[in-house]
């Protein structure tokens, strides 16, 4: 049903784009060309714990490079079709065409909106513009927070948005309900049988406050996880429910954010907490704080970001080979890291920005961080240098 709905909407988008010649059509594009390298052969930086690609000592463009096309076809005064095609590297290191946006948009007046189809979930401050590098100050959103959700960044379903004024602020509340299906078999298949969320925001053009909650009923089929769960089922069925990754209900994410931008000063901050309800996926919380100052076309900024695990307790009920497997799995699941980044955004011409960022990433002694390798004993930090060219057209 979900696949049929998505294909139908994509078909509608394409059909409208070709046939509605009299309608008002807008096409735009965006992209990023990035390059990053670490200062250590023991550090291969990546965007999320499950990402199969990284940038190491010898440098790589894989982290941030992407290309997208966005279209909006207005059918009537109140109705339009919006689609976005994105080409980028997915978590299993394949260059993939995806459609993060493909929806029918109905806006009967300025206060009410309805989106039917595929859209971004409502969790983070910049989830909506997640791939539009030109829209934000950094080379990339702080991975300490933005890696919490992983692959499930868009939802197939219905989103409703209501706006009104509250003093000089525009207040908005939006809710969504839908499903998520990510098929990267045989490595991983993720299903959100239900994905629903609500976000409220207040904005006056200078400052925006935002709070959101997203919940999902999740099933994961992954080579590594399912093998371990099967062994637990065979040897210790009484604790299987704690490790199950099938019909985990509900996984919950909460986010609070603030954005202040007065033309000279820029402040961006978010804090997120998640409860994943299975011992196979540790609970975490994360935050970042960015402070920047705009001077003409330059925006230097500093960012601190942190990701930490919560509610973690080592498993001591298992025995034998399974106990050592779980112990190793738990050690590999510790992704805590703290980053301090200095960066500069240079808007050197209309619609293009060059960004440079250097960050020091610190890992606690027991943590592997979000990177792929293991730092040598006694070394707890490394430096990542990045440049990115962002553009919109």
């Amino acid at each position: 049903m979900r696949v049929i709905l998505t294909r139908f909407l994509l078909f509608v988008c394409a059909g409208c784009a070709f046939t509605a010649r009299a309608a008002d059509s807008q096409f735009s594009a965006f992209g990023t060309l990035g390059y990053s390298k670490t200062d250590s052969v023991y550090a291969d930086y990546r965007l999320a714990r499950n990402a199969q690609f990284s940038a190491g000592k010898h440098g790589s463009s894989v982290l941030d490079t992407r290309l997208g096309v966005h279209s909006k076809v207005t059918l009537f005064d109140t109705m339009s079709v919006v689609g976005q095609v994105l080409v980028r590297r997915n978590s299993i290191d394949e260059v993939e065409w995806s459609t993060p946006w493909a929806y029918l948009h109905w806006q009967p007046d300025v206060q009410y909106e309805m989106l039917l189809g595929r859209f971004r979930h409502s969790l983070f401050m910049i989830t909506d513009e997640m791939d539009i590098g030109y829209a934000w100050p950094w080379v990339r959103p702080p991975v300490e927070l933005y890696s919490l959700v992983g692959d499930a960044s868009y939802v197939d379903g219905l989103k409703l948005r209501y706006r009104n004024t509250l003093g000089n602020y525009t207040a908005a509340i939006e809710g969504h309900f839908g499903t998520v299906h990510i098929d990267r078999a045989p490595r991983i298949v993720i299903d959100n049988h239900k994905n629903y969320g609500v976000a409220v925001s207040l904005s006056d053009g200078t400052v925006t406050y935002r709070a959101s909650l997203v919940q999902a009923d999740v099933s994961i089929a992954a080579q590594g996880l399912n093998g371990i769960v099967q062994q637990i089922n065979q040897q210790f069925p009484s604790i299987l429910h704690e490790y199950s990754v099938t019909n985990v209900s509900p996984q919950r994410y909460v986010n609070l954010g603030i954005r202040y931008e007065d033309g000279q000063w820029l402040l961006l901050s978010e804090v997120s907490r998640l409860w994943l309800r299975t011992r196979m996926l540790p609970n975490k919380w994360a935050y970042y704080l960015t402070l920047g100052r705009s001077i003409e076309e330059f925006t230097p900024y500093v960012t601190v970001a942190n990701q930490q695990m919560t509610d973690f307790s080592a498993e001591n009920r298992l025995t034998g080979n399974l106990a050592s497997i779980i112990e190793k799995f738990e050690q590999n699941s510790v992704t805590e890291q703290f980053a301090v980044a200095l960066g500069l955004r240079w808007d050197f011409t209309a619609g293009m920005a060059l960004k440079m960022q250097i960050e020091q990433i610190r890992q606690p002694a027991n943590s592997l961080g979000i990177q792929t390798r293991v730092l040598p004993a006694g070394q707890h930090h490394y430096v990542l240098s990045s440049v990115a060219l962002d553009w919109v057209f």
Partner: protein
Amino acid sequence: MRYCVCCLFCVLFSSFVMGKTQLAVIVSSESTIAKIDAAALQAVFLGLLTQEPELRALKPLDLSTGDTRDFFYQNLVGRNRHQMQSYWSRMSFTGRGTPPQEVTPEHLMSELVKNPALIAYLPIENVSTGMKVLMLIP
């Protein structure tokens, strides 16, 4: 690293200088709107909601990229042309709003007097008959 931090803070706390002129915020003389305050004008030109329902129907017009437009946004919301472009990329690529229609000064003057739903800005010396001035900037 210490050198980088020093450079960053020197840049962060340096001053910002801006030129001077005066713009008129205008609607058609047939418009029923008699006044608008800075907060409402910001909301109109940033695609946000205004408290007054009659202002919500206003459609803002932008001049094509240039000094007049830069001066308008610098004084109204404190942002330069790059910051405004970044703002609208955030809004338009996510379906949350579309930037004001861009027109030439000649087109603006001819369209505005005919359509009471439009609001725009011009150097004060370009204001002509058929236009009503709601506000002066700065």
